[in-house]
Structures are given as C-alpha cells and as structure tokens.
C-alpha cells in the first residue's frame, strides 16, 4: 500500500539545502493553525493527555516554531485514572522539550465537592474532567485551548470548527458556529470566552499513526501489544490490572495479548486483541481494522448524542 504520509515529505537527502520542499497538506495545515493561535491569542495552552494525538500535536507545535521554543505551556487534566505508562511518558517528554507543564486534578474537584464521583459498573471520571478543565481555564485565564480531537472520531466532532468558540460557561453553541472560509480563522472573542482549537481536525486515525511512523515519534508502551490480565464485559476487553476499572466477582480474569487504541481514562478505555508490537505492525493493523477507534470507548456508547451533550457542557 502507498497509503502513508511518509511518501510525501522527503527530507532525508544527502544535501537538504538543494532540495525543493515537497509538502504534506495535513502537516502544513496544522502548522498554519498553531501559528494562527500564537499570533491571535494572548494565553494559549495545549491540552495534553499523554495520548498519541496530543503527542502528535506537540511534534507539530515544535515544527511550527522552530528554532524557537513552543510558545505556550502544556496542561494535563489528570483524572487520576491514567495508565501509569502515560504519566511517566508525559514527564519525560516535558523534560526533553523544556516546556512548562500544568497539571490539574479531577481528584481535587471531587474533594472540593464540585463534582460527585460516579459509582457502579460503568463509573468513569471521563465526564468529570469538564469541571476541572473549566476551572483551570478560569484560573489561568486561558483564551485558547488546543487539543487533539479529530473530526473522523465521532459524528458530533465532524461538525466542529477548527476555531470553536466557547462562552464564559464553557458551552458550545453547536447551531450557531462561525463559518470558516478558506484559511481565514477568526479568533476574535470577548473577555471570559475561550476558543477550542483543533489543529489536526482533518486527520484520520491512520494519518496520525502514519505520521508517528514516519517521524519516528515515541509513544507510550500501552499502544503496543503486550501481555495483560484482562476480563470481558459487553464484548469489550478491560484491564484487570488496574483497580479503578470496576470488575464484578463473576467476571473472569485471563491473560491476553492486547494493546490500547486510545488512551483515555482507564475506566472507560477498553483494550483490543493484538499482536502489533511495533509501529509498522500497528499501522498495518489500523489499515485493516473493521472497528473504529472509539468503538472501544464506553463513554460514547452511553447514547447516540453522548458526545454532543458533553461538548455542549464544555467537554473537550
């Protein structure tokens, strides 16, 4: 298959300075968007989850401002239910880049009584993140929050703009979005409002993986096939190694070769059976996959409009 981004951008030549720059449209679009954010806003922040999409964002931001540093901090809204591998990875990456990392914890929002922890079989902290995020935006007066959401992920996200305005309650007014014409991004907002920015809106899951492959970007180990104690529920595979994932007595634990396709809150992210233990195998697997990426996210399965509802309330 000729299906990769890698076919396009040829950099590895003996004498780069004599080359004409060939382009990858998606990469150039993302870089353009990052620069618009840096120029149009006073306090932007990159929302970083430790997942592959936000790691890709960091690489693109590096490219956008080289030889300068990334001109904004990263912020992690930590549910406390992260895979330990992603936290270790996050800290290492931030150290290497020399950028500022802000962490705000969902646990604090719970302790302050602002949100109430869900209970039961499907309990998740995923939607609780919204409150912590909105508080952090207010605390730091961020006017632009960049994230790695993509339009191909989910049908409400397919309607999202690249610059998506949120009112001072963090709400998304999905029926009254600003038209985005040509390349022109209108970042004018009132004080208290903020803009959610999606530089990789037009990328598909495969585009992201191909880019990680081409750029040799490091990602957390849980994206690759590994042995893990798991149990089955509702046709999905859940980690039995982490206590935050609810497991009933009668749900049987077995060891399987699995990997994770998305890395969200552990309590709502299921694994997939896989032997793909290298990036090349992962890309090959995604290409052949019959299940969409969010097929293993229980948070979207709550209702047909689950994502739209969360987004209206200020969710990423």
């Amino acid at each position: 298959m000729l299906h990769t981004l890698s076919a396009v951008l040829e950099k590895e030549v003996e004498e780069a300075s004599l080359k004409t720059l060939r382009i990858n449209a998606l990469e150039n679009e993302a870089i353009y968007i990052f620069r618009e954010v840096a120029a149009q806003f006073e306090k932007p922040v990159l929302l970083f989850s430790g997942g592959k999409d936000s790691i890709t964002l960091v690489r693109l931001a590096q490219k956008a401002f080289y030889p300068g540093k990334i001109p904004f901090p990263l912020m992690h809204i930590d549910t406390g239910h992260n895979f330990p591998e992603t936290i270790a990875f996050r800290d290492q990456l931030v150290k290497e880049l020399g950028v500022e990392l802000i962490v705000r914890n969902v646990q604090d929002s719970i302790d302050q009584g602002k949100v109430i922890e869900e209970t039961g079989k499907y309990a998740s902290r995923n939607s609780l993140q919204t409150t912590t995020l909105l508080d952090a935006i207010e605390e730091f007066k961020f006017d632009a929050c960049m994230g790695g959401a993509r339009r191909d992920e989910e049908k409400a996200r397919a309607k999202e703009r690249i610059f998506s305005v949120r009112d001072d309650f963090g709400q998304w007014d999905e029926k009254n979005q600003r038209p985005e014409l040509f390349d022109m991004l209108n970042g004018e907002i009132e004080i208290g409002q903020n803009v959610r920015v999606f530089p990789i809106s037009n990328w598909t899951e495969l585009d992201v993986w191909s880019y990680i492959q081409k750029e040799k970007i490091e990602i957390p180990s849980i994206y690759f096939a590994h042995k893990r104690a798991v149990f089955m529920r509702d046709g999905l595979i859940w980690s039995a190694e982490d206590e935050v994932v609810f497991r009933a007595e009668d749900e049987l634990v077995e060891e399987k070769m699995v990997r994770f396709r998305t890395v969200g809150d552990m309590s709502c992210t299921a694994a997939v059976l896989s032997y793909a233990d290298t990036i090349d195998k992962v890309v090959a697997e995604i290409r052949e996959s019959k299940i969409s990426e969010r097929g293993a996210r229980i948070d979207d399965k709550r209702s047909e409009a689950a994502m739209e509802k969360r987004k209206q309330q200020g969710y990423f």
Partner: protein
Amino acid sequence: MEVLKIATAGSVDDGKSTLIGRLLYDTKSLTDDKLEAIKKSSEQRGYDYLDFSLATDGLVAEREQGITIDVAHIYFSTPTKSYIIADTPGHVEYTRNMVTGASTSQVAIILIDARRGVIEQTYRHFFINNLLRVKNVIVAVNKMDLVDYDETIFEDIKRDFEALNQKSTYAEQQLSYIPVSALKGDNVVSKTETMPWYNGDTILEHLEKLETTDVFDGEQVRFPIQTVIRPKTTDFHDFRGYAGKIYGGSLKVGDTVTVLPSLTQSRIKEIYFFDQTYKEAIAGSSVNITLEDDINITRGDMLVKTNELPKVEKHIRATVCWMDGKQLASGAKYIIQHNTNKVLSKIDAVHNVIATDYSGVDITKNQLALNEIGEVSIRLSKPIYYDAYKNHKSNGAFILIDAHTNATAGVGFIN
C-alpha cells in the same frame, strides 16, 4: 499522501447522504461498529433500509428534523488519495454553509434527481461553485434506477445543464456528467450492467484522476506573515524568521522580494521547514523564511516577488455573501480580515442582490440579508494589497467580522 477536498451540493432528498454513504461503503471506509450504529438507528426509526445520513448528520437537531444543518466533514481514502468531503446542507437558508464548504474544495459534486431534472436549487448550487471558482464540477444525475436507467433522460438533463453553463462566469471550470444510482451503487465506485450506454468514469474513477493542487491557485506567490520567530537562544541569537504559508507559485533562496506595505526590498536568505533548509518551497508549504537584511516586519505584512506586485487600493468593490442575521447596510463598520491582515472598513454602498438563478434579474436593494449575495463597495481605513479573486483566491478573498459580536458576518470576493 495527496488530499482532495470535495463539497457536495444537492436539494433535500436528492440522495446526497446516500451517495456519501455509498462512497464510504463501497470503498470499505465504514467500520463495522459505525455500520452497526447506522443499522440500529435506522431500525429505531422504522426504516427498512440503511439511512446513511444518520452517519453524517451529527447533531441531535439534524436527526430530529431529518435535515443537514451544518457542514459535516467525512473522510475516506483509497491507496492513492485521501478524500475529505464537506457535506453541505441543500436548503436555501443554508447558502452560507455551501459557500463555506466550497471555499476549501477542489471539486464540487452537484446532485440532480433524474426524475426532477435541473431545478431552481441546481441553479444556485452551480452559481455558488461558479462564484467561488471551484475547479471541477461533477454533475451526478442520481436515482437513475427510478427512471429505468433511461439514456434520453440523462441526455436531456445534460443538455439543460449545458445551457446553464453557457451563462457561467468561469469558463475554465471543468464539468463532467455521470449517471448514477447511489441507492443501488451504479457508477458511484463501480460500473454496473445497468447503463451499457454510458462509457465514462464512475464518480470515484473520476475523482482518482483529478489533480490535488491547492485551491488557492494563482501563479504569483503571496506570502502573508503569520508571526515572527525570534528564539534569542545562544545558537540562534540573531535569528529572525518570518513564518507563514505560501499561496501560489513558489519561493526560492535568492529571490528578490518586496515587503508590503513598507515596500522595502530584500532577498531570501534561507527557507526553513522545521530544522531543515530548502532551496525552494512551493504553494501550500508552511515555512519559516529569513531575509538578507534586517527589516521591520510584523504579522499582517506580506512578502511578494518584487516583479509581481499586487494591486493596492483603499476602495474595493466585491461580491459579498452575507452570513449574519443582522443585515449588511451602507454606513456600517466591519473589521476586514484579508489573509493575516486586519483593517477597519466602512460599507460605502450595497448595490444589488444578485439573482442566483441566472435569470439576470438582480434586485436593486441597499441591504444584504442572511444568505443573500450582492455587489458591495467598501472603504478601508488603510489600503490593502490584493488581487482580483479570479486571479488569486487567497489574496482576493476576505471575511467581514462584526466588531460588536465578533461573528464572521460575511465573505467577500474582490472584483
């Protein structure tokens, strides 16, 4: 990977969503879980067929009303190309969304119901694609299965459309006509036995042959500055890079360039893309450029080749598509965003509302309402360096921003 952007246009019930669903299904781009979700929703609504529009109508209000309100973006790929479809609503009140979808597309697919032929809506869809100068238009005559795959019906519609094309304002536009049945899958991805009289390409075959050059065509290079990069580190202490995206043509190391509006001249010293330098960068590249001389350049300035200066004016006349609930009236002030440059402006006059049905009967009116398209004269607080839209898309288009609401209130195409 090459990316081709497509905008769809069709009236309600022309089968637009079915066509997109068919493209996804036949290119095996619909995953099992998405297909399952469509099946489930279709059943819940009591349909005995798969309603592919449920895959694209992402908002609750859209599913309730069974119509598309806002542009949705849909992705699929073949071994040679990635495709992005902007699925735009067909209702007259959503003209602004059609214009939005068309602004970034290299191809438009206009759907026609074979039983109804060319109707008033078709005129408007074609008009918008004319106005925005979308390079390729595919006229897909759909529901051929409901007219017994009759060649004469297809030929009649083709003739009607050709008559419409005589009135086109964009002679270089490439038109192709394809008879299809999105429901049955005829001529969408594969050819079938149903229409032996048709020897042309299927829709996908045609798309696969199209060039993916940037929509912002124009031979002369325009380089609007987005931001200035000054690292002030030990290694790059005096580095001053101008970051932006190249529109039209290309830039080479050594090119003599003029900075607008200061009219200062210099030469290109280096072209950076990340940590590599190149001798040349073509349209579409987001690069970082250094110059031989230290010049004061800021966001909103533009670099051009010294022998390719654009026009400069303080008064412009443009075709404006209005996108705001508050009418555009003479005397009103708006912020104009032209590339990365922002200028205050005052509407001198609204001349007319253009009849988008090619009747030629333009209405003389001094206001533009939501979704209306008209000729407007605008006075700017500072001159801008522009090209006519027909010569250079990116440097010939602008948006109007309402300074009170910050809304993107309209889009203009400079005459």
